[in-house]
């Protein structure tokens, strides 16, 4: 299939459009298909420094090659939100797996998108919903080591969702009350180099009752 003909997303796309940024949260209808092992209640910490060198080195969320059967072409990104893993398909029944942090929204949709744009040390503009919840947040924060968006961002389609770094690497493996898909800075840099604009991204979540 010609990647250009892929729909930006489908599935529960309507609700998705309505969400604002990686950070919008609606606890009322947050229904985890499989409850998170742990849900961290941490707020964003703008200003906290995390450098390019930070990678997850140990445990299941460390970057590693794993067995992975897929009909997707090599290079495709597959995100399993309930597992907290992002896979980049390598062919030959394997994939490079990264641990990620997901937002609660991550449970609510699945979809097919493309990487529309890439950026280094992205700026951050918390949306109004988030400011209302965390009034101390800045209205704008220039990209850099203290920015919650981290070292790199892969923008998904024309949405405000993205795969990005973080200045809170301890949140990897958790559902955080705000955030889309976040990797430790060293890991997002590694991923960034492997993923060109136009890459297909498949987001899967577990079934729900």
């Amino acid at each position, binding site marked *: 299939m010609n990647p250009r003909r892929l729909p930006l997303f489908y599935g529960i796309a309507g609700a998705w459009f309505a969400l604002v940024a990686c950070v919008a949260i609606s606890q009322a209808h947050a229904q985890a298909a499989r409850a998170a092992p742990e849900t961290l209640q941490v707020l964003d910490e703008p200003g906290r420094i995390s450098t390019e060198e930070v990678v997850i080195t140990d445990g299941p969320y460390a970057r590693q090659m794993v067995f992975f059967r897929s009909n997707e072409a090599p290079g495709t990104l597959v995100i399993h939100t309930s*597992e907290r893993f992002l896979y980049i398909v390598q062919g030959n029944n394997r994939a490079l797996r990264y641990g990620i942090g997901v937002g609660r929204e991550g449970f609510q949709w699945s979809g097919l998108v493309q990487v529309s744009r890439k950026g280094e040390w992205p700026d951050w503009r918390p949306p109004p919903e988030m400011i209302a919840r965390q009034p101390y947040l800045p209205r704008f924060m220039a990209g850099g080591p203290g920015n919650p968006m981290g070292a790199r961002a892969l923008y998904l389609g024309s949405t405000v969702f993205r795969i990005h770094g973080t200045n809170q690497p301890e949140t990897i493996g958790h559902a955080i009350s705000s955030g889309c898909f976040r990797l430790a800075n060293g890991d997002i840099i590694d991923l960034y180099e492997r993923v060109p604009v136009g890459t297909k991204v498949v987001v899967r979540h577990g079934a729900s009752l």
Partner: protein
Amino acid sequence: MLNASQIAIRCALASFLALVLGMSVLPAAAGTLESVKQRGTLQCGVSEGLFGFSERNAQDAWSGFDVDFCRAVASAIFDDPSKVTFVPLSAGDRFSALRTGRVDLLSRNSTWTLEREAGLGLAFVGITYHDGQGFMVMRDLNVSSALELNNAKVCVETGTTSQLNLADFFRANSMTFEERAFPTAGEALNAFQSGQCNVLTRDQSALYAERLKLPRPKDAIILPDVISKEPLGPVTRADDFAWFTLVKWVNFALVNAEELGISSKNAAEATSSGKPDVRRFAGVEGGFGKMLGLDDAWALRAVRAVGNYAEIYERNLGVESRLGIPRGLNQLWSMGGVLYAPPLR
């Protein structure tokens, strides 16, 4: 994986069982479910101790992947995961214990082979864990595939199928290797640790457990490649088909629950779901429990007690355990693995 002495024991066991079979002095065949119900507890054969699969703590409490399967079956029957009597069995004793009725069910990391069914009169209910021989390497060797191991020094346990598979794999891929064989797994691990070899080969689940014994586990990685088939699963006697079917469908139920999104945490809400397949699973529709001789809520009871397949896996072997074994083959068919259960209808 079998060493020479285990093979000898198995041959002796098989001959003995053939003799017993010929003399027709087997225990009464059918009615396992009835005797389990009468006894009020499931007799479940497990390993004497295998990290992640079957462990007993100081308080005599059992835990593990194989242990949880016993509890799932008990919960389907009694709605109570504690109604299990765990019977620790050695590799040599396990099949005779099942044959003679000492246990109703064997859930003891046993590889499904033709000989064990056709030769011993047993029936594997399915595959709960797809294991296979793999390779552990030091991270600084900088390889990501078993196909990059040409000229490696490989440590292996003498007289095992692992040793034979190792030679086959390198030959089939036109690669050479230097073998360092040791009489025990412990010595092979020590040799790997001291640098006598840069690769250690065993079944993958065992490699994950061995890695924890290294002073710095994160210095070693386990390659994703699997070079042999070691399908592990629960076993029943072949002469009680109704019991075999019951146990088999408990396994299918755990996998289907994951696929349907039914977990220990939301089991209570499943009965009020509007989805037909969830309602059948919960026993609200269909009446399938009676066909198995159980309450219609049997499948939901099992999941409520021990969780669905993913919960059992992650708790004992996966991200929530010290082993941290990736799901790999043991992932749902729709998510990159080979787990596939027939529909519960």
